[in-house]
């Protein structure tokens, strides 16, 4: 009997899983005992962390993209046909074109999306760098910027949790190098009562921001933006004026998740160790799509994907589970234009970032290219 594995989502999580399965199931694929196919939304695969460098002109846009069919193992048919309904009871997925894909095992890795439209005035009044169009607009605005008040505004939930502090310190270095910091004020706003969700990152960021003269406002959850008056107001009742607003917009999961009744906000209730959808024994959830209270980040997707690969291979070839996901997350943290550090943690090990160094910054720049080996399942 053939085992049909269907992967919905062509981002990092889905792609690592597809390629990793191919590397371990060569014989089963050859003999037809297993088939793997993928449904996605684009012919391009984007290296999302590279967007951080776009506003500063520090990366060539071509470096961010590869043809998804070239990143994917050639044994995986790739259908650019967005999923519109996922029926986990009938074990089938319907796509925009009306096709129906049946499966024995399903991997849902549909990711997250930016929702600036959830906050009145944000689309009109703010810049962001979490997608290419936004990062380009922010680059153009920075080119024109000649001093004033910049606000870096963070909203929950959002992916890549260290990116807000990275962009803040990179903005400082960028404007300082241009000689603009003497007539610029940067203010960083954060939803909770410290400067970062990770306590050690918050403890490192506070004295660093104090040293650079970067202001901050904690317990700031955006209620509305006035794009004409150029102010941003929080649910907590604070209003700040700005000349340039850089926001990390709130995120939701994919529309197909809510449309299929699989989870509020597009986040699927998921067993945090087995990465199975709650209530299913053949539906794996990976990457940003889970509702696990853990960082939505590429490294999370990577470590989760490795677990899903091992368990799917083990289930298909030996009829047993291989291992649990241990909650591992690893993030590089750019602490300016020339230095960086990193942080890792899992369900039982708290984070403990080291001192920033130039070497780690260089390693991050190297990883910007090594990423493609991760996507191919080689790293």
């Amino acid at each position, binding site marked *: 009997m053939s085992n049909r594995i269907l992967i919905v989502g062509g981002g990092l999580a889905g792609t690592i899983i597809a390629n990793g399965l191919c590397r371990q199931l060569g014989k089963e694929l050859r003999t037809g005992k297993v088939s793997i196919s993928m449904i996605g939304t684009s012919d391009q695969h984007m290296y999302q962390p590279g967007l951080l460098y776009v506003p500063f002109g520090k990366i060539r846009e071509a470096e961010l993209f590869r043809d998804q069919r070239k990143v994917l193992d050639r044994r995986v048919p790739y259908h650019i046909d967005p999923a519109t309904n996922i029926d986990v009871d009938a074990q089938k997925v319907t796509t925009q074109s009306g096709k129906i894909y049946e499966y024995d095992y399903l991997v849902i890795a549909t990711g997250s999306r930016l929702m600036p439209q*959830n906050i009145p005035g944000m689309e009109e009044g703010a810049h962001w760098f979490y997608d290419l169009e936004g990062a380009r607009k922010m680059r153009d605005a920075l080119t024109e910027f000649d001093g004033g008040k910049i606000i870096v505004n963070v909203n*929950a*939930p959002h992916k890549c*949790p260290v990116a807000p502090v990275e962009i803040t310190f990179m903005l400082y270095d960028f404007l300082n190098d241009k000689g603009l910091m003497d007539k610029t004020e940067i203010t960083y706003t954060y*939803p*909770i*009562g410290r400067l970062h*969700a*990770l*306590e050690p990152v918050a403890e490192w960021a506070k004295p660093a921001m104090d040293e650079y003269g970067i202001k901050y406002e904690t*317990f700031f*959850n955006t209620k509305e933006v006035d794009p004409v008056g150029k102010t941003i107001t929080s*649910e*907590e*009742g604070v209003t700040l004026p700005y000349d340039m607003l850089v926001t990390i917009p*709130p995120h939701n999961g994919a529309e197909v998740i809510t449309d299929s009744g699989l989870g*509020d*906000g597009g986040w699927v209730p998921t067993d945090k160790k087995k990465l199975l959808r709650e209530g299913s024994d053949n539906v794996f959830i990976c990457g940003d799509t889970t509702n696990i*209270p*853990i*960082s939505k980040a590429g490294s999370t997707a990577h470590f989760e994907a490795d677990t899903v690969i091992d368990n799917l291979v083990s289930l298909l070839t030996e009829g047993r589970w291989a291992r649990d996901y241990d*909650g591992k*997350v690893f993030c590089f943290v750019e602490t300016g234009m020339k230095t960086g550090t990193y942080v890792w*943690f899992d*369900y*039982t090990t*708290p*984070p403990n970032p080291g001192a920033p160094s130039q070497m780690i910054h260089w390693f991050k720049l190297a990883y910007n290219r090594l990423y493609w080996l991760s996507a191919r399942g080689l790293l």
Partner: protein
Amino acid sequence: MAERKLIDARGAFCPGPLMELIATLKLVEIGDEIEVLSTDKGTAMDVPEWVAKVGHEMVGTEDKGDHWSVVVRKAK
């Protein structure tokens, strides 16, 4: 009818219990309750402080021995 949602953020270092609560409040109806389980002792102080600032309602905080249970009602 009001519902209660559970966030089991025990052992969650990032984004952490309060950030999970803020995100989940955006998805529920006024009157619904959210129970947050947390092993971070700061949660028992952070959550009431934020709830008071923003105008939601604290239902209760309970020390369960190895973790805290904090219940919040969405008020607006």
